[in-house]
């Protein structure tokens, strides 16, 4: 039962990303062509509102549903892994037009070829796990 709330958040997330067209290959293409404000508006307003939310959480030391302090984990400090990993991710994002959330949402939307992308993304994750010690982080 404790997972029900996550299931509903997932449904909500899937509906938002579909209705906002953020799951569309075309919208990603248009974003990287700087031909529309749409995607920038979505990400920008999501970040702006979340910045305010997280600020309030920290200021008022708000508690989670389980009564624990809400901590937003910090990312480990580095440059190489973020710029290289980010660039590799960006190449794939603009090619397949789908990132790890929308992949699954598109499956629900009935785009079955996306399964190939999901399996390939698992393969990419797997290969990273195999060779990560040899990569500069």
């Amino acid at each position, binding site marked *: 039962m404790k997972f029900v709330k996550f299931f509903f958040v997932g449904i909500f997330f899937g509906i938002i990303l579909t209705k906002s067209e953020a799951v569309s290959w075309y919208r*990603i293409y248009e974003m990287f062509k700087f031909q529309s404000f749409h995607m920038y508006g979505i990400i920008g307003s999501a970040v702006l509102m979340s910045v305010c939310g997280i600020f309030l959480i920290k200021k008022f030391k708000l508690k989670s549903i389980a009564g624990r302090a809400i901590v937003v984990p910090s990312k480990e400090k580095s440059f190489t892994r973020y710029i290289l990993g980010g660039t590799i991710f960006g190449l794939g994002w603009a090619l397949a037009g789908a990132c790890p959330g929308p992949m699954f949402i598109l499956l629900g939307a009935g785009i079955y070829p996306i399964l190939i992308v999901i399996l390939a993304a698992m393969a990419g994750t797997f290969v990273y796990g195999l060779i990560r010690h040899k990569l500069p982080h």
Partner: protein
Amino acid sequence: MDFLLKPWPWFVSGPLIAIVLLLLLYFGTTFGMSSNLRTLCTISGAGKYSDFFKFDWKAQRWNLTIVLGAILGGFIATHFLSDGTTIKLNPETISDLALMNFTQVGDTLLPNEIYGWEAVLSLKGMSILLIGGFLVGFGSRYAGGCTSGHAISGLSNLQLPSLIAVIGFFIGGLLMTHFILPLLF
């Protein structure tokens, strides 16, 4: 209720995504979708090959539940919350894509030239999906997050690493869109 069936503008969708993120914080978790790919690898037995996949995947069941919900959300949105409105892309985008021989641009969520069965079952189309997916999976784990983990969660928490990752997303995305896609189509 008509507005629900139309595409939602950015100023509705963006704040709703923020609510998703804040809800997940309130639930004592974080917002990050690419972690699920690692969890799925672990469930498939990847722990036999790398310690990277040796972790208690059951602790990630909440996130997999979000994935299940997201799949259902995609189904609900396309079947019950859509009036079939085409995507209102910039006319320039449409003509740029027409130059690459894309047709019916914006009529469906995804282009037939990449996701239509005819394309998918060709060597080129299959390669695009395989390579694209592979890069997304590899890159997101290397960078330690994707659009949700870095561009939304990380930036919202004012994390410099996330800003570097997002700059990387754009370097890769711009290279692909401006230089590689025109070679492919």
